């Protein structure tokens, strides 16, 4: 969901960009092995949520850019609403009455 959201906000990005973005947005609360992005991206490629294209970075290096597809966007909406629903439920449970 985080990957999809990042791509949704910033448009096509390479793997490193996604990692940096997630880290910044979560203000370093979410520390994951950055490498585990790649198997996840591959799985999304197979499911058709993202598309990949090789491109040039600002400093002229070759990198693979991932782009959200309409199917990915739909998936994101679903996941976000599901997540929100669960979060609200949890919040209701843990908040003092």
């Amino acid at each position, binding site marked *: 969901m985080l990957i999809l959201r990042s791509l949704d906000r910033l448009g096509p990005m*390479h*793997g*490193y960009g996604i*990692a940096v973005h997630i880290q910044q947005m979560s203000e370093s609360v979410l520390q994951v*092995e*950055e*490498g*585990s992005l*790649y*198997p996840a*991206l*591959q*799985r999304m490629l*197979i*499911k058709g949520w993202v598309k990949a294209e090789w491109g040039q970075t600002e400093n002229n*290096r*070759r*990198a*693979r850019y991932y782009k959200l597809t309409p199917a990915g966007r739909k998936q994101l909406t679903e996941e976000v609403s599901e997540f929100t629903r669960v979060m609200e439920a949890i919040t209701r449970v843990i908040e003092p009455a």
Partner: protein
Amino acid sequence: MEGPGELWRRLLFLLGRGRFNREMEVEMRFHLESRAERNRAEGMDGDEANYAARRRFGNAPLLEEKSREAWGWSALDHLAQDVKFAVRSLGRNPFFVVVVVLTLAFGIGVNTAIFSAVNVLLLNPYPFPQPERILSVDARHISGKNSNTGYRDFLDWQQQNSVFDAMAISPETGGYTLTGQGEPQRMTGGATTADFLRVLGVQPVVGRFFTADEDKPGAAPVAVLTYATWRQRFNGDAAVVGRTMTLNGQAFTVIGVLPRGFAYPGIETCAFFTALGESSSNSRNQHQYGVVARLKAGVTVEQAQSDMNTIAQRLEREFPATNTGWGVKVQPTGAALAAETGRLVWVLFAAVGFVLLLACVNVSGLLLARASGRTKEIAIRSSLGAGRGRIVRQMLTETVLLSLSGGGVGILLAVWLMKVLRAAAPQELALDATLHLNSAVLAFTVAVSLLTGIAAGLAPAWSASGAEPNSILKEDGNSWSRARSRNRLMAWLVAGEVALSVILMAGAGLLVKSFALALDVDTGLRVEHVLTFALNLPGAKYSSDSGVSTFYRDLLERLKNSPGVEAAAGVMTLPMTGGVTGGAFQVEGRAKAPDWVDTLVQYNASTPGYFGTMGIPILRGRDFNEQDNEAGLPVAIVNDALARQYFPNEDPIRHRYRDDPAYGGQWRTIVGVAANIQHQQPTKPPMPGVYLPHAQWPANSMWITVRGRGDAAQLAETARTAVRGLDGDLPLLKIRTMREVVGDSLAESRLAASLLSGFAVFALLLAAIGIYGIVDYSVRQRRREMGIRMALGATYGDVVALVVRKGALPAVAGVVVGVPLALAGAGVIRAMLYGTSPRDLTVFLGVPALLLVVALGASYLPARRAAKVDSMAALRCE
């Protein structure tokens, strides 16, 4: 995403794997370098920046592999890897490979061969459409004594039933002499009724089958050829219809050709089929035909049975004199056949199952010993990150590779064994046409090979893969506890092997013993120096009884005067050839039995001198002589069994009895009592029987028996010359010595006994190898221990005893488990035994004793080696 699209994607991925890997690597390197740059920008120095980037990224190769796995087919990847590795690893150990492959080849080979028999005989008995609809319909007397049907009853069944599409008489096979095409040739033909092909559900490939009109007495003779006869005799000429064949001196018009592969138990030797041409005025009393029928669609066997019951009851009411007590039994033909041979085939199938199990156990043992030499290799692999499942899979790949090779070699063995089975099996089973390697048999072989590989490899692989890599690599050798657990597993395997061997060997022992007893049984005949052959005088040329009698009298005269011949005589039914003519027997002055089948005795006819030629003693009275001819007083000789049954307290000589009405109902005077002989199989009890003089009851076909002074087989030329001197067109049939005739009658038990003893020898060999293997292995494990013991003063004998116990204990355990199982198994083959109890003491003491001796021998060899260990060398080497 599942489905063909997915498959396609995976396939594409498999092909583009190299590119995928490169791209993945570029992408990850870019990530690492970018991160490192950023780290440097934040003030780290070069190496530290790279290192931090890497730490942050995680295990790159693993992540790369995980990405790959997302795309699927790593399993195939692994398999290819495993196979490559297995081939390399096995290649280092060719001797081990040969032993394992040969063991498995034997196990799989015999299973394939016996399965092909099971497949043919029990699973797929007929090459016809819907063979399960083909039923046999048998007359069944309440006494259970006869199962053949009279022709008139057959006609009534055929007309009155509403459950069968078609009904026909099973072909009556008979010998025909084909003349007019070069040398006179002997052929077998089958006489049947018009609907026979409709019952089987096949169509002629050329021409047609005969019609009901052509199946009447006096109709012009027609013949339908089998495919093979058509190809061989008429070169497959499509214009064969209308040509004639001269059979037994009579011209038959060819009207059709049957399809290829037309085989049916009992008629597979037939070269052609003709119309039975039976007269419908035939007596209902002559129960002589087998009937087959094809069930209508949607009708069950039970419904057919009940319809036929109704008809049989109606016939009983209409014809009380002949049909009282006669019912009908409808049953599947496959089942009828299976009942006869099924037990033998199942016993053999069970036996080969045991053989395969044994081979599995043995291979497991070998693999276990081999795994002990690989503990370090496996420990290294597992410390490099291979999971237990991955290691088990790798080792199973090896065993499956071995078992598939074993299966490949096994098929060669199976093909050879099938040839043996085809030659040895009774002809009625029609194995010639059907017992071949086919797709079902091949599928069975492949499945069995795979299963065998997995079964044999699982235990060793599991045990080997459970190693704790740390301790193994540190200890520089086997950890004691692991070796112990492996030893225990091996001991279990040996015990299992011995138990299986006990079962197989006991079964084989019982069968071999009964076979030997059956061969030794006193048949009442002196079979040495006797040659036999059959003649069948063609009816067209020898049409009168006196002509037949004269021919045989002249022939026997010639034979008796030939050099090297002591005696010669003729008999209608030769002992041990199966065919027996039955008929009623009614003593003069006694009440007629209510049912003729209750007085069923064997009828035979012989020429003067038959009893002397075959060495059958005349107990009272006299043999036939030349005066017992057409003009003489009707006489008969009875056998001892008949004398005891019908004349328990008096001398049968000079009593009169009446022949079966079907044979003319002649009143005859008994002039002699002959000793009993075994007429069917040596293992069946003698039946009451009468002999009539051949001159008073002539038949065109006869067996000639010739007693000589030397080797019986050398009389064949003498016999040929004598026959040719009288009739150059007459072929001599079934020339065999009497000893061969007796032996052939036991073909089935010989087959069972020889196959099972082959399996038993194999079992013994495997058990010996298995025990030797485990003891040798444990000795090598305990070299140091032995060295210490010897250094501390243990004697040679102490060490030998210690080691031998290692092999002997599991063997004893195996015997203890195996004997009760073998006793249970013996109960199953009880019916196949003759003169041998299923609890036979010699077998059940001898087999365990033999196995224990072999176990001791197999343990002694490595024990001796252990005891010769130089204690200093053993201690130093570790």
